[in-house]
């Protein structure tokens, strides 16, 4: 094992490598050169003077933010001799399950392609390209015939994969005892219990002010809200990523949220980002991909039918179609245990087959995927800005919700965490639900996979996502799922079937997430 300082220098090297040659790098160089013209610079103290000037003009802060961002997406440290797959996912059975899953969905995609006789990718004829360019801002008005397309997979298919996960080294008896795990996830991964989470999430505690609780109508604003907004404005003017992340733990005010999230994710809307988006748009215009139809279908089925998000239909196409073609997303496979799906493409001469990543960004959309983007439309309406924020959120958090891994923010851990919390703190409820054939995870899974998007009302969802960003972890999603069950426990104890349990939990639109989380974490007796 490497010691800490060696690990640190490896990380530093990696970050420097990644930042070299970026737009920021060239801008810093340019700024530094311009500094040389300034009269305050003295040759003897050149280095320090330039540094000082860069700090004063805010460029050091920008660099800090960029480094901070890189830290978020740094691949996990590993033994120098370990192959990358082992570093990304140390458990062999998880790796195997992920590989099998990938094979399945790719097979499903390919067979759909063969069945329908539609190529995976096709160059658009020029008239079609022109038509699409004209209709770019209103693709939602198109009514293509999507009846032949089915989503490649839905969350419940994915759940079955986890239910089948077994650690071959773990011998378990089939008997249900108090000590066994009652839930569907039968692997043992580390998870935090409530006392540990109290230490992890102190800002959610009863002695801290929160947006989502302390901005309620009957609470005078000068108790917390006014001061919090004042601090928020300062954070935004300081343009400090790390500060914004810390701030977000207590919630972002509606009027500042867009800027704060942008800061936390370090998505600047600089010319580089805009150009990148335009290039992606050009790729959409030139080529039609099979997955585009899946995207259309998903948006029509989910977001367009949602009371809040139907308005943003056009934006969703503009983001997701570009997303499919963004090869920059492939970078996240450096730390994602999944591998990008590859399809065999015939070369022009027909004699060779080569494997190319398909779709180009390596992400096959599933039923409900568009709901990751929909809430962001509330905050950003410039497509390139919206796109940057979504992409960053995907490569930091959302990808973990649909790949099999042992990562603490991975979906398997979240599901296990949820079940454990329920079993520990609501054993009677869990037992009752088990007995009537209503395993809680079967109901909660869809919430967790979407990080509650489309289930909570928008303002509550955004408050939840504030904390995901603030704590850089999806764990809070699992806690909320358990808290929801706790909240409706009384009604759930009365039900006698899975269907009625689903009915009790069908409508979450009236829930207030922060009080639920706070009560569950800090007012549950342990």
């Amino acid at each position: 094992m490497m010691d800490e300082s060696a690990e640190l220098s490896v990380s530093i090297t990696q970050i420097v490598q990644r930042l070299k040659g970026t737009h920021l790098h060239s801008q810093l160089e340019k700024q530094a050169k311009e500094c040389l013209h300034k009269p305050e610079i003295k040759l003897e103290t050149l280095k320090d003077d330039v540094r000082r000037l860069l700090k004063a003009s805010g460029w050091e802060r920008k660099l800090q933010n960029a480094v901070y961002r890189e830290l978020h997406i740094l691949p996990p440290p590993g033994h120098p001799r370990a192959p990358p797959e082992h570093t990304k996912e140390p458990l062999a059975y998880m790796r195997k399950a992920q590989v099998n899953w990938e094979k399945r969905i790719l097979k499903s995609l390919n067979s759909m392609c063969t069945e329908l006789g539609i190529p995976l990718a096709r160059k658009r004829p020029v008239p079609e390209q022109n038509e699409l360019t004209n209709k770019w801002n209103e693709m939602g008005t198109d009514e293509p015939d999507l009846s032949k397309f089915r989503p490649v997979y839905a969350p419940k298919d994915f759940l079955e994969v986890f239910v089948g996960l077994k650690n071959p080294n773990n011998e378990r008896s089939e008997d249900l005892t108090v000590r066994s795990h009652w839930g569907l996830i039968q692997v043992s991964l580390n998870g935090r219990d409530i006392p540990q989470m109290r230490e992890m999430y102190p800002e959610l505690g009863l002695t801290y002010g929160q947006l989502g609780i302390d901005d309620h109508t009957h609470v005078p604003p000068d108790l917390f809200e006014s001061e919090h907004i004042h601090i928020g404005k300062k954070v935004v003017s300081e343009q400090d990523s790390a500060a914004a992340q810390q701030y977000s733990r207590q919630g972002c005010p509606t009027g500042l949220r867009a800027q704060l999230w942008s800061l936390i994710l370090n998505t600047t809307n600089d010319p580089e980002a805009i150009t990148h988006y335009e290039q992606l748009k050009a790729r959409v215009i030139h080529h039609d991909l099979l997955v585009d139809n899946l995207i259309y279908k998903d948006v029509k089925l989910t977001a367009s039918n949602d009371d809040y998000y139907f308005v943003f239909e056009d934006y969703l196409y503009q983001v997701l179609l570009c997303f499919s073609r963004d090869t920059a997303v492939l970078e996240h496979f450096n730390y994602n245990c999944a591998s990008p799906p590859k399809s065999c493409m015939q070369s022009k001469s027909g004699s060779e087959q080569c494997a190319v990543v398909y779709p180009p960004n390596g992400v096959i959309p599933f039923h409900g995927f568009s709901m990751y983007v929909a809430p962001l439309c509330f905050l950003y309406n410039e497509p390139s800005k919206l796109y940057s924020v979504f992409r960053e959120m995907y490569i930091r958090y959302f990808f973990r919700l649909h790949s099999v891994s042992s990562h603490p923010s991975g979906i398997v851990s979240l599901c296990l965490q949820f079940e454990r919390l329920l079993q520990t703190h609501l054993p009677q409820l869990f037992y009752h639900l088990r007995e009537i054939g209503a395993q809680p995870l079967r109901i909660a899974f869809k919430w967790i996979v979407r990080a509650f998007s489309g289930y909570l009302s928008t303002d509550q969802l955004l408050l939840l996502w504030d904390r995901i960003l603030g704590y850089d972890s999806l764990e809070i999603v699992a806690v909320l799922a358990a808290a929801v069950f706790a909240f409706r426990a009384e009604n759930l104890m009365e039900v006698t079937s899975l269907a009625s349990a689903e009915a009790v939990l069908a409508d979450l639109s009236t829930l207030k997430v922060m009080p639920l989380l706070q009560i569950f974490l800090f007012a549950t007796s342990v």
Partner: protein
Amino acid sequence: MSKNKQTAGHKGAYSSQKKKEGEGRSCIRYRCGLTNTIQDVLNQRPGWVEVKDDGDWDFNWCDVGWLRENFDHSYMEEHVRISHFRNHYELTRKNLMVKNLKRYRKTLEREAGRLEASKCDFFPCTFVLPSEYHIFVEEFKRSPGSTWIMKPVARSQGKGIFLFRKLKDIIDWRKDGTRSEEQKDEAQVESYVAQRYIENPYLIAGRKFDLRVYVLVTSYIPLKAWLYRDGFARFSNTRFSLSSIDDQYVHLTNVAVQKTSPDYDPEKGCKWQMQQLRRYLTAKHGFETVQTLYKEIDNIFIRSLLSVQKTIINDKHCFELYGYDILLDQDLKPWLIEVNASPSLTASSQEDYDLKYRLLEDTLHIVDMEDRLTGKEKRVGGFDLMWNDGPVHTDVGLETLGSSCLVANTHLGCVNDRQKQLQQLLKPFPGQKRT
């Protein structure tokens, strides 16, 4: 989504109500001319009983047709209430509203100066046809290329409306043989207005929308008006573009018109709750900007009501629930499109039903047939008292504010925690125990 329907209580035994002016009433007899949400609200109100046709009534939720035929012949005792003012059309018919507003503006300019008068500039340039045809043509020629909208004065639900850019379009229209006889007759009388079309509406995701806001007036002299916190934004189903002025579906956001649009899918909502809209705008533009916007919207209600204050026959039996249609432009300036004296009470969805139910319930609380209010309330349920012979301010302690500025008592698009407020405010219905 399943939501519990509002059950305001059980109809318990009717203990005799306290005597009012020598009259004892064991229950409240109501007449209702409509068969939608209001019917449910009245039906479920404890102690209220429906009377049909010829029976005496204490309360009448009538349609304007009934009003026109019967109001002048009805004798109403002091306690009786009816849901319209006799000549409400001074506010709700487009030609009369324009006339009243223009007159009010002139008075204001004379008495208080230009600045004050400019606060009435929330109404797009409008001319009544055919009487103002010539001044209209003058204005039309002064702004070539601009788009105008022609609206029939007394129709609703978007009927008979069209857009035009060239004068010859209206000349064609007048001669158009395909219009029905009824429409042609109307054109002879003063029954159309030509209005400058707002070409830069505020768009959300490329779609145009307008706001429906509810204002309850219980008296004109002195003017007492309440503003409801809930309301909604109605979206056009298609994307906005000025190139297709013939496509009336794009430009008109009335749900009634949208329902006939070929794109319309009743499963798809085309409404956002006011709270949703306010949050969206706040996220986009910041708190202060949106605060200012809503203040300007308040201004529209107040000025429009003041402009007809002296014209409306102020009968103490009357109250009226108006549906205001407001449009925002890209500079976040609100414009008044029209005022409805009979806003639709038919629900388009469960959510819509719940909103209208709450609205009507709170309306009845304010009308207060059961005599439970003191008259000093600034808030009843989801209604905030907006104007009481003068502006109304919230009871905010001055120490909590940085400066000593007064805060208006309106909360359009804000949290509507009416249940709690009502529980604290109202005594239980007679014959009903407090739960």
